[in-house]
């Protein structure tokens, strides 16, 4: 099942990330994954937290522009070549990846990657077919 990711528009100025993480802390929100893409002038912060709607509300209240997009999580064996084999499946199956990043921490011998793809359902089905575990929100402890 697809995971809901929160994206936030960041202007490049000092202290902005500190402010956002403080807002999360004040609302008892826990981070599951975090990624920043930036240009010289601005950035896009992508977050997965344990309370998606609450995070979105609180950030918007604080004046941030934030929205939701769907991404998928896929298990990667925590050994050399683990990611290479996953990516070769994605390449073979022609799944279009916008961007990817890793989830904080890992369970046992598996870590997880987040993929932004155009069709989450199809991508998940394809990965499962190749025996690759995909993550759902329960797996991430998201409410």
């Amino acid at each position, binding site marked *: 099942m697809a995971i809901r*990711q929160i*994206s936030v*528009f*960041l*202007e490049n100025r000092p202290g902005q990330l500190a402010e956002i993480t403080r807002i999360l802390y004040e609302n008892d929100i826990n981070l599951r994954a975090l990624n920043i*893409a*930036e*240009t010289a*002038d*601005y950035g*896009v912060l*992508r977050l997965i937290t344990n309370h998606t709607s609450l995070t979105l509300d609180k950030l918007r209240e604080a*004046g*941030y*522009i*934030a*929205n939701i*997009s769907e991404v998928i999580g896929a298990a990667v064996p925590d050994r050399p070549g683990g990611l290479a084999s996953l990516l070769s499946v994605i390449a073979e199956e022609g799944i279009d990846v*916008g*961007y990817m990043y890793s989830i904080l921490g890992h369970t046992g011998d598996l870590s997880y990657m987040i993929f*932004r793809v155009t069709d989450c359902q199809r991508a998940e089905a394809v990965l499962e077919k190749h025996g690759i575990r995909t993550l759902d929100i329960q797996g991430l402890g998201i409410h």
Partner: protein
Amino acid sequence: MERYYQREIECASSAEIRKIQEEKLIKQVRHVWENVPYYRAKMEAKGVSPDDIRCLEDISKLPFVTKDDLRETYPMGMLAVPRSKVVRIHSTSGTTGKRVIGYYTQADLDMWDECCARALIAAGATDEDICQICYGYGLFTGGMGIHGGSQKVGCLTVPMSSGNTERQLQFMEDLGSTILCCTPSYAAYLAECILERGLQDKIRLKAGILGAEAWSEEMRQDIEKKLGIKAFDIYGLTELSGPGVAYECSAQNGMHINEDHFLAETVDPVTLEPLPDGEQGELVFTSLDREAFPLLRYRTKDICVMSSEPCSCGRTHKKIMSLRGRSDDMLVIKGVNVFPSQIEAVLLEQGYQANYQIVVDRVNYTDTIEVRVEMTAEHFSDSLAEITEMEKKLSADIKTMLGIHAKVRLVAPRSIERSEGKAVRVIDKRKI
């Protein structure tokens, strides 16, 4: 049914208006000749005396007056009546170092109020209306000018002055204000606040009289849609009186000049030759019946087209069309004339807010222009590629509009300072 404040004069035939103007001009030239030595010297230098002014066309014999003349005669050198006759002054902000003080007799104030009353009625005002004035009161002409007009119409006049947005919204809601008078940029900001707080249903506004800065048609539509009002432009200068020199009517297509009080010409800004109606040129005004501070052929630096086409509202006075802003606001970038309102039109067309800033600089002897635009929730995407695309699209449209490349920089919402009076649109860092 179109309503007027003074129907006979507002709808007078062009022959009647011409007759009024001619009589007043002849009298006014004599008035300044006799009472302002500076004018007399200027006229003598040009070899012209009041006897040479017998009809309207003779105006072209008179010398022009510019802001430099006003600076040279500061503070009282242009005063044309004994000081005991003067009852009030107003002044420009003087931020560009060119402060101008205008002097008013009681008759001058009455005339000014009358001009503003015409503007208010053209915007639909009646004695049932509640007119909230958020132009600054004090030396600035905006507040007290509209105030006088509003009282003449019989509106319940709310003299808020500028600033304190919380209080503005509170009064707007509690009193049920129906007419808003402020700068277009402040109206846009108020609209933003109203939508944000979900106050739409509590606001009773029907019209806005928005002046003191140039704005685009796109900005008008944006404000009208957000506030659910009709927005009217109004024009004026402290040098001539203040707001109400010209104003929009129900046609919302150009501003009628109060021609019985102000004689307008358009001239070529370089050769200073008078231009026919319909041709773009610099606006030049003669105040026909000001007593304390009369100006003959004052160069406004405003670039516009004047139209004498009949108007659907029935008013016959000529209109100022497509006013793009003061030539003072005009930027010359890489040799190209740029008006902030042109950039504003592109932004609004693509769904961005009317809050923007233009930063001009010179790097390695080449002008650079950066347009700072606030990101909106509708435009935002988690994909950097898509945001970059949006910047490119804005930049491309600006290039089509102006013919020069501008870097577009998307910034965080509300990071561009809101103005309570005239908005600061341009930061020119060039040291020339």
